[in-house]
């Protein structure tokens, strides 16, 4: 046997384990204890009663639903460079560019849509964006709809989402 092989001790060879029934008894004791503790006080079971109770422990690193950011002056930050759409492995970002109408920059998206049914939430679009225009920091983990079209997020909807973790505030040094 080569020297660098680590021999892990194999459990379950003792008489008690080989006889099996004592081990079953031990296991049933544990499941029984859990069962009766919880039956005794069901309201104390540490389970989230979603949707009435919402999770309060979503970290800042959580990839929630996408959003489009604004510039400090309130205009759309996106310049329709197609970097996110190119980086997207699921091909779920649809951009139609147009000339800038608000006079801030040269290009802006006329249509910017993300098909969340295709999206794999990999975060590559956020990585690829040179303008910090797309982020996944909304903290929204649940998207519901009645038909497939409801899951295609258009520009207006993406712009309406707010960042959930106050990243703008920390960047601005507030």
């Amino acid at each position: 046997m080569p020297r660098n092989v680590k021999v892990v001790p194999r459990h379950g060879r003792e008489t008690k384990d080989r006889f099996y029934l004592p081990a079953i008894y031990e296991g049933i004791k544990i499941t029984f204890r859990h069962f009766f503790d919880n039956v005794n006080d069901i309201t104390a079971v540490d389970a989230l009663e979603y949707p009435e109770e919402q999770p309060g422990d979503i970290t800042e690193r959580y990839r929630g639903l996408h959003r489009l950011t604004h510039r400090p002056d309130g205009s759309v930050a996106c310049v329709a460079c197609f970097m996110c759409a190119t980086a997207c492995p699921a091909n779920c970002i649809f951009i139609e560019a147009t000339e800038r109408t608000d006079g801030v920059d040269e290009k802006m998206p006329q249509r910017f849509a993300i098909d969340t049914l295709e999206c794999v939430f990999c975060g590559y679009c956020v990585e690829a964006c040179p303008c910090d225009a797309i982020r996944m920091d909304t903290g929204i983990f649940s998207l519901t709809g009645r038909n497939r079209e409801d899951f295609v997020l258009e520009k207006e909807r993406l712009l309406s989402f707010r960042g959930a973790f106050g990243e703008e505030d920390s960047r601005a040094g507030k």
Partner: protein
Amino acid sequence: MSPAAIIVALGSFVLGALLALLMIPVLVWLERRVAGLIQDRLGPNRTNIAGFRLGGVVQSFADVIKLVLKEEYYPAHIKTGRWLLMLSPVITFAAALLAFMVIPFADTLYIGGEALRVQPLPVDFGVLWYLGVGAVGVVGIFFGGWLSHNKYALLGSVRAGSMMVSYELPLGLSVVALILTYNTIDFNAMVQWQSGTVLGFLPAWGILVQPLAAVILIITLFAETNRAPFSVAEGESEIVAGFFTEYTAMKFAMYFMGEYVAMNTASAVVITMLFGGYQLPWVGTASMLTHFDYYAWGYMVVLPLIVFGVIRWMRKNNRVRPTVSTDGGRGFETKVLTGALIIMTLLIEGALLWVTLLPEGTAAVATAVALLQIAVFVTKLMAFNLFFILVRWTLPRFRFDQVQYLGWYYLLPLALFNLFVTALVVTGGA
């Protein structure tokens, strides 16, 4: 046939059907809730009708409606034998259901000098019926897996077959040892045998008289019902779903319900053969009939205590947390259920009081004894069903070669040894 005989026959048949069929939604619910509570979560508890959740039992009935209304998908590649494909879940379901029908729910009723069996099918060869009819269930699994023309389904049914050949023998031999001990193949006579005592103080239950046969019987019945830890015929991680891969909607539900009926049947057989059936420990039917007053008084004291405990538990647990804003009618449900429980208790107390005032030996006393025994039977049945569920959420699944190894190398010699010793003891070594 006298009217009493017809009433008892019909009553026990209806009771058997209810205990088998109505137990399915209850067991499905119980399994999901118990699984949840064992794993520190809640399980289905939201479905309600006008605020009445009943702890979530309503979910099972909603599931039934869904399964009935669901589209029946048919694999298009199956050209011949469709009728058998349709029939195979029914075979599994019907076998488990019919096997349940020979379980006695109470001792033989004597009304007007007539002996009436409280057994849906009043036969005196119950053990043979159970072994014969119960084993047919696996045929449905074979046909289903084989006719699906799907390699996963076929593997599932092959695995079910491999398990059956390794388990039918120890099962049969342990039952033979029990038959030798009780000297009967009648379930009712077996229960009557178990009403005595061994060593002067222990109830003569099969599990104490024949511990080895009892362990083998329980293990093999777990395999017979195709439940964890012996659920090798269905393995999501290896063979998609096993033998019912191609089944949808109600056809799948028949297999699913068949498993629960089989589990219920196995529980009934175990408590009938090993745990004294409908008998309370140390108490025979004769003593209950002659001293029914005492048992009735005892029951009248115990019942309100139990109901009080249930109501207290419900008031404590049937409410929502402060963090959840909506009550959803749970407070109302608790009030109504509390009232219903109290009224039911009062009715039972009144009936018991009325029976104690009657002279002993009347038909009413005999019926009351039978009803009390039915209550004991149902309690034991539920307790053992709970044990089935607990074991499922305790043990990991066996590989199917391990199942065969266990069956052929350990259980078969043990069962033979046990049979040998039993035969020696029964014949007195002659």
